[in-house]
């Protein structure tokens, strides 16, 4: 066992790391102590590596560890991590949206909507909803069952209607009949949901839709494993951990806190590039259905957007683009980013009301590779 002073040092250091957001359990601290016992304490780099390898378990935590190590063992001033901005988008802030015509508004009833009201709400553009209507639409969005496209796994399950022989079962059954396979057992491939990647545009031009679509992302995230969610305006933010919270409000707050450029300008090309570089390279896109929810109004380089879409489409199983503006009868894909992206999109859909989000589910459920747009 290391000396008492070392033990105290490491235990306190573990606490510092926990405050910095790392998961440092007592097991890890014990490992660190055993590790320090095994190396030369006067070699600073060995001490550094020993602590890092025992106390850190993911690449993303290395930076925080380095800061803490610097501060704790090398006596440098602690640099505070970048302060997270408080969430900006609350229901009350939807001033920009035009008030709805709303015959269903009179009487300001708080009871649950009747069937016809609900029907109206389902086809009402998110942008023209009043805060009250939106509050009710929220429940509808959350209730959308996100259908996931399926892929066939390699694993076989016993299935009397299957086509692959279940040889283990067959051998067992053949015992009774002297090696003659009288009763045949079969297996078939199981199906599992495909990976699903959702990338949401939260820039200023999407403000009227971002809240509703983020709720949809939350519902999708809750549909099971293999769902990754991202948001971008000028830069890409991964939201998968934040949207994992069961309560949509908590998830929403956490997500809004993470996204630093909420309602900022749009740089679709640069954000897709960041996605491709960071996540596509790590094969997240391979075999996945990628859904991009954006109006395609690119402030940056439209050519870059086209190039990155091509890269994305080459890796993905299928690419779906959801554009809320497409819900308007007179919409034409004129925005530069949208025009550049369209040749690489398998399905082009609208996403401006509850019904269109519901139909997105059925499209995803039946999607096949390389559909014409």
């Amino acid at each position: 066992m290391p000396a008492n002073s070392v033990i105290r040092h490491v235990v306190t250091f573990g606490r510092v790391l926990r405050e910095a957001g790392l998961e440092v359990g007592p097991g890890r601290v014990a490992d660190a102590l055993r590790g320090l016992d095994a190396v030369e304490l006067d070699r600073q780099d060995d001490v550094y590596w020993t602590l890092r390898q025992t106390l850190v378990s993911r690449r993303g935590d290395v930076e925080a560890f380095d800061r803490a190590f610097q501060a704790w063992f090398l006596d440098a001033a602690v640099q505070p991590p970048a302060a997270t901005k408080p969430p900006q988008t609350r229901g009350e802030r939807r001033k920009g949206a035009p008030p709805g015509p709303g015959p269903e508004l009179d009487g300001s009833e708080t009871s649950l909507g009747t069937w016809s009201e609900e029907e109206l709400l389902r086809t009402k553009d998110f942008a023209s909803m009043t805060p009250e209507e939106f509050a009710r639409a929220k429940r509808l969005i959350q209730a959308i069952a996100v259908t996931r496209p399926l892929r066939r796994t390699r694993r076989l399950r016993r299935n009397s209607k299957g086509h692959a022989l279940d040889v283990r079962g067959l051998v067992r059954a053949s015992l009774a009949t002297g090696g003659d396979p009288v009763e045949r057992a079969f297996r078939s491939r199981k199906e599992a949901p495909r990976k699903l990647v959702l990338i949401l545009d939260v820039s200023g031009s999407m403000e009227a839709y971002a809240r509703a679509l983020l709720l949809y992302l939350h519902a999708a995230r809750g549909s099971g494993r293999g769902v990754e969610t991202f948001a971008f305006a000028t830069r890409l933010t991964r939201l998968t951990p934040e949207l994992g919270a069961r309560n949509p409000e908590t998830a929403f707050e956490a997500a809004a806190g993470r996204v630093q450029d909420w309602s900022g300008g749009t740089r679709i090309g640069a954000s897709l590039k960041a996605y491709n570089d960071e996540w596509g390279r790590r094969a997240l896109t391979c075999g996945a259905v990628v859904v991009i929810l954006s109006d395609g109004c690119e402030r940056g380089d439209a050519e870059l957007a086209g190039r990155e879409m091509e890269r994305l489409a080459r890796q993905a199983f299928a690419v779906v683009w959801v554009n809320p503006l497409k819900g308007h009868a007179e919409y034409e894909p004129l925005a530069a980013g949208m025009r550049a992206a369209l040749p690489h999109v398998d399905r082009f859909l609208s996403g401006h009301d509850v019904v269109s989000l519901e139909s997105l589910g059925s499209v995803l459920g039946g999607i096949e590779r390389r559909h014409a747009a």
Partner: protein
Amino acid sequence: MPFASIDDLESALAGASYLPDRGLSTALYLSLKLEKPLLLEGEAGVGKTEAAKAIAQALGARLIRLQCYEGLDVAHAVYEWNYARQLLHIRAAQEGTVDESELFGPEFLIRRPLLEAVEAEEPVVLLIDEIDRADEEFEAFLLEVLSDFQITIPELGTIEAKQRPYVILTSNRTRELHDALKRRCLFHWIGHPSLEREIEIVKLRVPGVPERLAAEAAAFVAELRMLDLQKPPGLAETIDWAHALTALGQQELDVENVETTLGSVLKYHEDLLSVRDETLAGLVASARAR
């Protein structure tokens, strides 16, 4: 524990033609000392798999490798029954004389890497390669194996490891691994080596490489990593490239031989297109200037 210190382990690895940086040798040393599996993460081609091979050689242990992939199941990772032999056995025997326990005995078992590692009498290094590619169900199963090193086969009972295999897991981080699995392991992130070390490694791994060529190739690749590429080249690419250039009898880099061999460094068409003409000439010039 055959190594007295980290330095000791480093020189043993160098004997196996592997030059780790201090971080990696500390990680390997600690995981041997604390008897914990080691999880190595890093970009493709930084030498994760090589590290496992080298430590096996340095330990004089047998390397057992389990390559993971989507859909990997027990039949391919642990064991499978040899059905053809079982059926033949029933046929060959007198009717009614074969019973089930005989049929599902050890001689009809096909051993896959995990079972092999657990059953091994001699010291083994178990390399579980690209664990991030396996399904999450498999990860959970692996967790069980790694915690008590025993495998249960319904027909045979539980097989316990005679000695703990030394386990190295690698991941390309295509997804985040489960926390429970990480908690069991020491974690080390392997980055690209420093220029000096990369030159050393190239000289060690490419027999007959001219000194000048090794230095220039490593410097050129280091420059490439600064560019905005879809797939920055790893150490494995530098070694391949130095091999290619040496095989072609080159003594140093020039625009022409770089152009003809660049395909062994850059594996994407777009990357090849972006490193051309002036860019390429500039990179060659600055690599030679070092």
